[in-house]
């Protein structure tokens, strides 16, 4: 019996600007079911970090509980990680982010972890605009506990056992828009071409970036009648357009067309260009994005792509005007200003 990933890699793998090949961004061998959409999202995260020349030690991966929340073990082995309690990833992320704003935060969660037990936490992370990428690996069920319907399961979706879900599903993108999120995207694990540039743009976004990725649970929710199966999603997918993330140093490609394309400048000067397929929607207009979501839902479509982007928002640190230096590098003289300062403060309180 063997189930070990060989150490050999393709001898001609290209290297990124840091001199690393893709393999440097890999993680341990996945223990998820063969064919799980989550693994594919992990691969897209690996690809994105490689392409963005990110140093893995500058990334922190945070997750809750679930098959989805296990995935940080399967990508970026050389990064920091915290596998927290079910639904509590946003709290840990908040703490970590407040303590050190220099890291890139990857929150990885499931639909159960986010929309059921973790809903109370999720909404506050959005509302506070933590600068993080929040990926929901959304399979419409609790995969880890054998496939019970989750809160994102669509009304009428049939489970593997044959029962029909009697509740309306929570639309995480709609909710995030409502709560003021400035980066909202939706994608499909089976479409890395679309997902990878979205992740790259999300990493670069100055605030909370939600990517809700439909990610089929091949074992418990890939049956006929399920609205989160590979077949169903492929048949009902609609794309707002293909996004392309253009780093600051690069120029936008020549075939950019003002009529069909939209160019959105990000906070640091980089661009997100969007080949707009849906003409009646403006990704920089929140109302228009909400409408697009509603319209596609009414047509039983799965709308994917960038849904809304406002690059100008203020993230939590800027709102609170908190320390720019990571707390672990603050020296004693800064942290402990001395007796005179204390006296001064005490005086103010009198």
């Amino acid at each position, binding site marked *: 019996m063997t189930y070990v990933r060989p150490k050999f890699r393709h001898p001609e793998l290209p290297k990124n600007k840091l001199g690393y090949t893709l393999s440097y961004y890999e993680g341990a061998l996945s223990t998820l*079911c063969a064919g799980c959409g989550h693994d594919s999202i992990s691969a897209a995260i690996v690809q994105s970090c490689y392409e963005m020349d990110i140093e893995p030690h500058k990334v922190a991966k945070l997750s809750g509980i679930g098959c989805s929340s296990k995935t940080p073990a399967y990508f970026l082995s050389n990064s920091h990680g915290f596998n927290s309690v079910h639904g509590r990833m946003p709290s840990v992320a908040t703490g970590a982010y407040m303590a050190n704003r220099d890291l890139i935060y990857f929150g990885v969660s499931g639909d159960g972890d986010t929309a059921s037990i973790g809903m109370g936490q999720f909404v506050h992370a959005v509302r506070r605009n933590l600068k993080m990428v929040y990926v929901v690996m959304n399979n419409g069920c609790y995969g880890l506990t054998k496939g019970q319907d989750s809160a994102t399961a669509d009304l009428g979706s049939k489970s593997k056992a044959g029962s029909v879900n009697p509740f309306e599903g929570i639309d995480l993108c709609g909710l995030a828009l409502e709560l003021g999120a400035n980066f909202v995207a939706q994608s499909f694990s089976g479409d890395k071409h679309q997902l990878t540039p979205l992740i790259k743009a999300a990493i670069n976004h100055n605030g909370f970036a939600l990517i809700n990725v439909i990610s089929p649970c091949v074992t418990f929710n890939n049956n006929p009648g399920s609205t989160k199966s590979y*077949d169903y999603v492929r048949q009902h997918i609609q794309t707002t357009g293909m996004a392309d993330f253009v780093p600051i140093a690069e120029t936008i490609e020549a075939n950019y067309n003002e009529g069909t394309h939209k160019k959105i400048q990000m906070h640091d000067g980089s661009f997100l260009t969007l080949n707009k397929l849906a003409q009646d929607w403006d990704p920089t207009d929140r109302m228009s994005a909400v409408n697009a979501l509603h319209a596609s839902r009414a047509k039983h479509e799965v709308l994917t792509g960038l849904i809304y982007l406002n690059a100008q928002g203020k993230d939590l640190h800027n709102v609170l005007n908190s320390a720019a230096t990571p707390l672990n590098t603050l020296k004693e003289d800064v942290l402990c200003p001395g007796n005179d300062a204390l006296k001064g403060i005490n005086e103010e309180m009198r």
Partner: protein
Amino acid sequence: MKPTDFKDPEYYHKVVDCQHACPAHTPVPEYIRQIAAGDYTSAYMINWDSNVFPGVLGRTCDRPCEPACRRGRVEEEPVAICRLKRVAADNKNADDVKALMPKGPFKSNGKKVALVGAGPASLTVARDLAPIGYEIHLFDELKAGGGFMRSQIPSFRLPEQVLNDEVNYILDLGIKQHFNHYVKSLKDLLAQDYDAVFVGSGAPLGRDLPDLPGRKEGGANIHIGINWLASVAFEHTSKIGKKVIVLGGGNTAMDCCRTSRRLGGEEVKVIVRSPFAEMKASPWEKEDAIHEDIPIIDNHVPKSFVVENGKLKGMMFEKVQAVYENGKRKLVPVGGPDVFFEADDVLCAIGQENSFPWIERDIAIEFDKWNMPVVNETTFQSTNKKVFFGGDAAFGPKNVITAVAHGHQAAISMHLFCMGMDLVADRPAPHVNLMHMKMGIHEWAYDSEVEPDLRYAVPQADKKLTLSNRMKEVELGFNLETGFKEAQRCLNCDVQTVFTESKCIECDACMDICPTACITFTENVETEEEMRKTLKAPATNLTQDILVSDLLPGTKRVMVKDENVCLHCGLCAERCPTSAWDMQKFFYNVTKAGKICQEPVLK
């Protein structure tokens, strides 16, 4: 692109790089697995069926399989395929092996053939035809069978016993032996009642330097390499001078210099015209020579033999350098005075030629402008329908394994010819088989784990010992433990990744897990050239095929797999939820003459 036709046995055959590169297409990974399992007898028999001389070849083969080995593309060095063959040969059970071989007397089919020369080519024909009832007459001017394997390959590389055993396996099949019998006239032979004649007479003429000044005067101490080696092998020569120059850069030169070291040569040098890197000798033969304190002096062109008072003193050389023009090499003098090297004896090992003084030119055998017989490359038939050629006699000097491969094909042709069948249309297809390897979750019927592990070196006997006795074998061979470890380096390239597009749900799991980025799901494109550029890792090795699927049911894209550095680790199949990927063992075996009558050819 059109979907790849992997039902064509040649598609998967090509994936088994070693087997494909082996002229006799020995099922290499199959026997390596048997060595790993400790079943040396089965490993030997698989070899014996394909290459007839596993013990000989396990020591002396030119190993075209090794440069082809996939392992060499992902790690520094290929699997030591050749020396693993020796492990099988050294450790087989001699009685079991004998019991598994065909045993005469065989029922006669009323046909009679003559084989000229008893080298590996003829012996292979004999082995393939004897069990199906042919009366076989084997002729050689030497006193025993084996051809150049006996007269040329020195005993310190190939012990006589090993050769005798394997030659005898064949002679024991009831071959009528005519040793010490030089065939003077093919015309006479054809006039006898043979149904077919095979010419396996080799390329017996060693090249000389007849026009070089001093050649005649120094003649007593100037020898033709292959004649000299034969005379050493048959114990007519047992000494050589202290200072020896060997001219030439091929394997014959290496055997000459190493043999000289064992016959009293103390300062033996190899002097060659070409640059060291371009010498014809195999790298390991050069290494072994250097190890025996034999310097190899390159870029020196012989100018003259220096003879004083009727005695050879040495040779003059001109120093040259290689210059390349339009891919062609020219050796250009670098200027400066010629260089003198002392020598008591000189051995010319500068090449061999064919020579057929015993074949009349009026017996319907056409010869080309190089005086070589015109021989069909598939059937090995000459323009005289009754006469077949093989081995070095067919297309010039090659090696033992090529001679064996020719022998198999010639035997098929001779059989078809004698049975009145068509030599091309009725040629048997290879025997192929695909077998599922899945045993359970994470369980395969082969050892799929792939670990980095560098090639193991074959231990050698002490130099003091080997240089003092020309019969003492230098290489000791792998012991069983190292043999096992080396066998484990094999990537099982015959366990194929078989793809069924109708089952694929395009979850990407296989693409994501593949350690060597072999698999890509992509839009179809027009040409292979374009496709090779769009893959996950560039498919730049054009000698390796890419497997393109039909349009996938979900997205109408295609699955493309670059075979180049696939580790055959089975992870794609392991991670595939629908078994769209399956690992299947592909067995490919060249059909031999003996199988034609057992398995009637389907038309």
